[in-house]
């Protein structure tokens, strides 16, 4: 009876009808593209990239039609379930595949397919001269399919398939130019760090089955509230471990900077707009677990707060335009994590910021790619400067992204980041003060390093006029239309999306049925005060950057800098720490085991073998007279057995 009542209260998700019933095609179309391009081989070289792009857009169109149908239904009937097939029927463990189309997943579908398709278009231009262009588009399609599976899955196990699929695509694309050994290492590093997170994910799924006897969202989330806070804390921390790896959050952040080895469209799509935000999705999707585990929730917020400062500090010191943007991505996802760790008050804002960030950060990465395209693949910002005149479209579109990430009203980032800062000031005890001020200070630092990046690239003295020895001359030029059009579209999003989605709380209300409502909490400081402080800090950060990097001359080689600058340039020594703590001891252990396996274990068992077969000279004889010896040994065995039996009786 109890469970019946509960089921009624939970409002079981209805089976999908109409266009929504075709949701598998969302995943299937780009997957088909990847398969055709990989299996088809050279035959598809001429048109493969166009097919991949078309299939990605087809997925977007279908997603758009589904969201229209969804918006046409009442709030309670919007979520729908699409069944799949009987996937793992193994004894006690039973699981079918299925997709959950609800307000949260469909928001991701639109973000992924829209930004993803734009980046497909951009890549047509960007990868035009690459010999392996077909493979690049196959991997992009594989990525889109996996990412869609990740957000649409109706169980943690199926989610994990998408989770690893995007990891695989990320690995393949970071190492796309793996003839450069450093890039191959970067790809491996990303995969290895993510495997550490996978341990968390895997054990989390084991705990779910142990606790609930199932791993689908419906059962797990329905039971989370009364499963006891200890179990849910363990579960929450394990999921957080997985999220930290995928979203490059402290302490598993070290792979993201190196991941910039991939072609720039990849950095834009995977390592800025979508895949790296999967950790935030996971936390928000599992909100019932975190709601039942306050300590795990606090851990999420702490991780977010640490990472947002960590990324911001690192971002101040990087001269490589892509690595500076990567540090910024880490920091912005830190904001999202912080919001997700605040509980019901923050879930919707975490996703809101995730969406706006997807637009403005992807736009800026594409802008960086456009700059590299016009500057012989140079990434060192100390060799840029004054590019605004040479690349007008890139400059303007990048500028919109820059205003958005700074949180200047009325651009997108203002609406989403400001909400997170406000929410961080909500709560009791020490938390609002710590989290609030971290978020506030982070906004100031963000303004500094992003302005530094923007000014160093587009303004100030042209530091590329005199080519150095061994360098070809620079002739900066604007990129072709296939590249600039996606940049313009994303720039429009950076400009207006925030306002459009927050008008009347549209987006928050849209997500409410999934993430739950929250009361009317008030920040510990008045909202206008928070907003004023934020804008003041942002203006200060930007002004300071203007002094240093626009007004003053930027040295073409980086000065030594303060201790903090040196530390930040070295990513706060993350690699040295990992190396000392894990890699070097691991290498020693492996070497020692290889040594003892040859000498120790093999020695003992080898001498056992030798004592039966006799000395090594007799071994040779055994081999030549093999059949006879074998028969003899068998006979010996039988005698031993009969003897033993006789003794036993």
């Amino acid at each position, binding site marked *: 009876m109890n469970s019946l009542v509960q089921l009624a209260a939970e409002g079981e998700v209805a089976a999908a009808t109409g266009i929504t019933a075709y949701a598998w095609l969302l995943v299937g179309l780009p997957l088909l593209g990847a398969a055709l391009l990989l299996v088809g081989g050279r035959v598809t070289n001429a048109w493969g990239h166009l097919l991949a792009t078309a299939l990605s857009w087809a997925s977007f169109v279908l997603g758009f039609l589904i969201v229209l149908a969804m918006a046409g239904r009442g709030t309670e009937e919007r979520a729908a379930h699409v069944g799949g097939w009987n996937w793992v029927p*193994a004894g006690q463990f039973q699981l079918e595949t299925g997709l959950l189309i609800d307000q949260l997943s469909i928001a991701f579908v639109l973000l992924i397919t829209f930004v993803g398709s734009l980046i497909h278009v951009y890549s047509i231009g960007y990868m035009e001269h690459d010999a392996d262009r077909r493979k690049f588009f196959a991997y992009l399609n594989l990525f889109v399919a996996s990412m869609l599976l990740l957000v649409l899955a109706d169980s943690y*196990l199926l989610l994990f398939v998408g989770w690893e699929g995007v990891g695989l695509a990320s690995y393949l694309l970071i190492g796309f130019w*793996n003839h450069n050994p450093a890039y191959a290492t970067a790809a491996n590093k990303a995969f*290895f760090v993510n495997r550490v997170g996978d341990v968390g994910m895997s054990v989390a799924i084991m705990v779910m089955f142990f606790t609930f006897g199932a791993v689908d969202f419906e059962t797990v989330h329905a039971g989370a509230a009364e499963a006891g806070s200890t179990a849910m804390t363990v579960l929450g921390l394990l999921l957080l471990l997985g999220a930290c790896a995928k979203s490059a959050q402290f302490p598993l952040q070290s792979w993201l900077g190196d991941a910039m080895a991939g072609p720039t469209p990849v950095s834009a799509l995977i390592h800025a707009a979508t895949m790296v935000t999967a950790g935030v999705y996971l936390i928000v999707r599992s909100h019932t677990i975190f709601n039942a585990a306050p300590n795990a929730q606090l851990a999420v917020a702490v991780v977010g707060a640490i990472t947002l400062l960590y990324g911001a500090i690192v971002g101040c010191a990087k001269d490589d335009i892509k690595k500076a943007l990567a540090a910024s991505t880490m920091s912005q996802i830190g904001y999202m994590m912080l919001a997700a760790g605040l509980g019901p008050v923050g879930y919707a804002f975490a996703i809101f910021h995730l969406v706006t960030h997807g637009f403005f950060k992807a736009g800026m990465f594409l802008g960086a790619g456009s700059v590299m395209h016009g500057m012989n693949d140079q990434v060192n910002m100390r060799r840029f400067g004054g590019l605004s005149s040479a690349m007008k479209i890139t400059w303007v579109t990048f500028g919109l992204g820059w205003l958005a990430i700074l949180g200047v009203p009325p651009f997108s980032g203002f609406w989403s980041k400001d909400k997170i800062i406000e929410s961080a000031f909500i709560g009791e005890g020490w938390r609002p003060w710590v989290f609030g001020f971290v978020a506030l200070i982070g906004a100031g630092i963000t303004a500094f390093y992003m302005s530094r990046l923007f000014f160093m690239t587009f303004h100030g003295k042209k530091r590329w006029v005199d080519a150095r020895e061994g360098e070809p001359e620079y002739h900066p030029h604007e990129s072709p239309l296939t590249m600039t059009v996606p940049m313009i579209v994303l720039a429009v999003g950076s400009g207006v999306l925030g306002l459009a989605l927050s008008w009347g709380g549209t987006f928050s209300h849209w997500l409410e049925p999934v993430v739950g409502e929250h009361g009317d909490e008030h920040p510990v400081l008045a909202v206008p005060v928070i907003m004023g402080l934020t804008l003041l800090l942002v203006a200060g950060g930007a002004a300071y950057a203007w002094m240093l990097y626009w007004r003053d001359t930027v040295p073409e080689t980086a000065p030594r800098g303060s201790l903090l600058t040196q530390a930040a340039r070295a990513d706060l020594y993350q690699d040295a720490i990992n190396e000392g703590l894990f890699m070097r001891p691991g290498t020693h252990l492996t070497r020692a085991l290889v040594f003892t396996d040859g000498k120790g274990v093999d020695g003992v068992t080898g001498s056992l073998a030798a004592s039966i077969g006799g000395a090594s000279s007799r071994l040779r004889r055994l081999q030549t007279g093999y059949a006879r010896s074998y028969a003899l040994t068998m006979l010996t065995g039988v005698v*031993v057995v009969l003897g033993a039996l006789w003794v036993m009786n």
Partner: protein
Amino acid sequence: MSGFPLLTVMMVVPLVGAAVVALLPGGSARLAKPIALATSLVTLALALLAWARFDGDGSSDRYQLTETHSWIPQFGVSYALGVDGIALSLIVMATILTPVCLLAAWNDLGEDAEPQREKTYFALMLVLLTFMVGVFAARDVFLFYVFFEAMLIPVYFLIGLFGGPRRQYAAVKFILFSLVGGLVMLVAVIALYFNGPGGEQGFLYEALEGGVTASTTTQRWLFVGFFIAFAIKAPMWPVHTWLPDAASEARPATAVLLVGVLDKVGTFGMLRFCLGMFPEASKWATPVVITLAVISVIYGGLLAIGSRDIMRLIAFTSISHFGLIVLGIFAMTSTAGSGSALYMINHGFATAGLFLIAGFLITRHGSQRIADYGGWQRVTPLLAGTFLVSGLSSLALPGLSSYVSEFLVLTGTYQRYEVAAVIATLGIVLAALYILLTYQRVFTGPRPVFLEGREPRDLGLREKLVVVPIIASFLLLGAYPKPVLDLVNPAVKQTLDLVGVTDPAPTNASGSAQ
């Protein structure tokens, strides 16, 4: 019951094929390979027929397609065959892998090989196929033992006659380890008869499952006797050291049959004999076995990372995976048990992919040392890509076949032994390291320089035919493992019923779907 003797025919066909191949007159020696391949394909067709005739809904008898004939009634020995779902799925796997391996081994001996040598090579593989079917199809403990030992003979010759430079050392080491295990088991087999129901059919599985009446101590000794033999075969730490030598000296096709199929007799035997016939002793030994299994998982992974020889590396990955299979068997939950049975199949294909594609690479460059490679993705992209896919299956990438089984093993184990499951899960980090570091060292980096006209070619048609069924199995069994799970589920359940254990209930029952 006494219908068409399908299982016997499946053993006779390859044996006849082997005889034909071996006795071909010199003039028609070039027919040896096609005949061998055709024979293996006929056997495969028979195996698929057996699958079609097998009734897997769990309500029918456990052993089907049975044949029973008296053999040495004085000693309780029958020529009795019959399969449950686990045995049948292993037979189907073996009959799929054999033609694949024959095709992979097509040019192993070179263009100008001695006809006699070539005939022997392919005849031996067919003989091995007969014994592989026999060992899984036996329904009599003594008959099982006969096949268990007979299998060694073709493998011994395949390694010792056709292997690498240290083949003789490797072959002797292999035979010695196996003989020690076999002898210990022989003692246990004979002792088992005297502690069972006895009679003219005293060695039948049905008679002994639940029919061993000995004292607790004797049962434990019997368990130990069987377990040692199977642990050497499987191989588990610390009796694993023969495998890296055997696998690295054997031809890749031999290595596949050895590691992918023969070694499964170890884990198959643990499930059928140790758990099925000595349930109490199995429970008694579980803490030790679980510990050894977890050590194998981690140890195999670490040693694989440290391997400089690509074939040794693959052998060590298998030690790690066998650790997981054993872990799942002794966790004694239906989830882990079905996972282990599925893992035996998936591991066979994943290992085949790694060994055979590594073999294609070695054929091209003549070296097994990882350090001798680099940048080969630019030279042989298809070979690189298929190796990577096999590697990803081996590291249990979700979406590919091994993942489902690994997940089931770990999840089912966690229900009883949380710590063991969590430590074993750390193996997934090691798996990523040993696969992707190898990929990096062999295939990435700047394009290597070859002498004019000596540029290696990418996979040819024959090699593609080898790779396609293997990769197809990764994708199909990753997305839809149900056909195999449906086969093994009832057998696992029946085994656990014999042991007398039930699955732990979820701690939070109200959240459960049940």
